[in-house]
């Protein structure tokens, strides 16, 4: 890639041309045979050379879970951190070291259960980091309990009579948390996954990518309807900025706005209604339509599941603003001394 990506302009470039091999570590990859994580790892390792960044300036931070083994397998810096806290650690790193390309790898349990709070605050702050949320709709590492994205009625070891919890929709959640970039892709579609990684890397601010990932041991075939060639035609809505939102055989179905409610709905396209079909605008300031798109999918059957970039808008970036504030403070008040501040006047002694 020859053009400079604005979001990565402070990150040093690699001295020589890189290949996928450069990003493979010497660690033996240990996930269950057939796990979707392998496909995501291969896609990320295959995409990284395109950015042409110095490997020493790339960091992968993960939490806890199967997907969180990711940093071991990337020949970059990385941290297998605390359960749910990867976004917090990455926030500190990305805002204090703007010469780094910071990526977070997390799962549906790590990001949405124990780490739910950290995730939403990272998204609203818009720190320059890229979050890969592997969603397999199950707890894999702990051997198959229902997760925050499992469907209602899911029978697992911890829910023998079916889960009573309504699932999170990670894309809806992210848009609600003021995320400036939200996308969804599928582990086995390498081309699409790579295109979404590219769009996220080019984005300034926090990017959230939900990756539907198959756990072939504890939740096999969870996304089969989106992968099976015949079923996918009716189930998957491919979002492309500036393009009509049409899908199905020969684009026989389309997404239109319901005039009465303002909501979105799927219709069979005819000559009469073809002009009403929405054109996808990922860059529009209002999150309303992106949110409505995220609600199209049926959480049980996954029919009408949009994939691609839902939303990609420019918003002030936290680390840039923080850096500006620090510079202004130093300009106005001098460099300052932490020890003096700590032992300053505004202290008191407690006790008897």
């Amino acid at each position, binding site marked *: 890639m020859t053009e400079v990506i604005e979001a990565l302009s402070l990150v040093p470039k690699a001295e020589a041309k890189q290949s996928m091999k450069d990003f*493979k570590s010497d660690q033996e*990859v240990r996930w269950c*045979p*057939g*796990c979707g994580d*392998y496909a995501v790892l*291969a896609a990320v390792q295959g995409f990284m050379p395109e950015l042409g960044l110095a490997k020493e300036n790339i960091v992968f931070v993960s939490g806890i879970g199967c997907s969180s083994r990711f940093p071991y397998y990337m020949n970059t810096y990385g941290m297998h951190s605390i359960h749910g806290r990867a976004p917090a650690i990455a926030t500190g790193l990305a805002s204090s070291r703007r010469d780094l390309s910071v990526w977070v790898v997390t799962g549906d349990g790590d990001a949405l259960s124990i780490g739910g709070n950290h995730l939403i605050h990272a998204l609203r702050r818009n720190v320059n980091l890229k979050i890969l949320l592997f969603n397999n709709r199950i707890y894999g590492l702990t051997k198959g309990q229902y997760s925050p994205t499992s469907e209602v009625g899911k029978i697992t070891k911890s829910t023998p009579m079916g889960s009573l919890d309504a699932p999170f929709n990670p894309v809806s959640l992210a848009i609600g948390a003021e995320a400036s970039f939200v996308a969804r892709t599928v582990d*086995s579609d*390498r081309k699409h996954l790579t295109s979404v990684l590219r769009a996220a890397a080019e984005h300034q601010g926090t990017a959230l990518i939900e990756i539907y990932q198959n756990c072939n041991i504890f939740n096999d075939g969870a996304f089969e309807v989106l992968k099976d060639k015949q079923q996918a035609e009716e189930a998957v809505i491919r979002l492309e900025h500036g393009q009509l939102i049409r899908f199905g055989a020969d684009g026989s179905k389309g997404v239109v706005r319901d005039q009465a409610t303002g909501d979105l709905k799927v219709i069979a396209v005819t000559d009469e209604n073809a002009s009403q079909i929405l054109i996808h605008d990922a860059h529009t300031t209002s999150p309303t339509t992106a949110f409505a798109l995220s609600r199209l999918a049926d959480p049980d059957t996954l029919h009408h599941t949009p994939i691609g970039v839902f939303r990609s808008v420019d918003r002030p970036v936290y680390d840039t603003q923080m850096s500006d504030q620090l510079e202004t403070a130093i300009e106005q008040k001098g460099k300052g001394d932490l020890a003096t501040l700590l032992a300053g006047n505004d202290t008191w002694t407690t006790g008897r």
Partner: protein
Amino acid sequence: MAYVIAEPCIDLKDKACVEECPVDCIYEGRRALYIHPDECVDCGACEPVCPVEAVFYEDDVPPHWQPYRQANVEFFDVLGSPGGACAVGSVSADPPLVAAHAGRADDPNR
């Protein structure tokens, strides 16, 4: 890195591996199956399901079947990287090593 299909697959093509592959990277030739070296993500799902133990991790191919590493690469010289075997279907070609193979000793049609 990738997994490799060796001699035992020739004239058998059980295809249990094709069912297991999560990224659809096992292609069918005339006499054997081949794993795409760039599309394979090293997940290893194919290896244990092969009824004749024809699938090996690249570094673990037995010495006498080493040429099959190259054969799996050569099969894609013409095909390139189609990004999925399903859309390609069966290809009526094999790399020279497989095409010239005398057949399995236990094959009644040999």
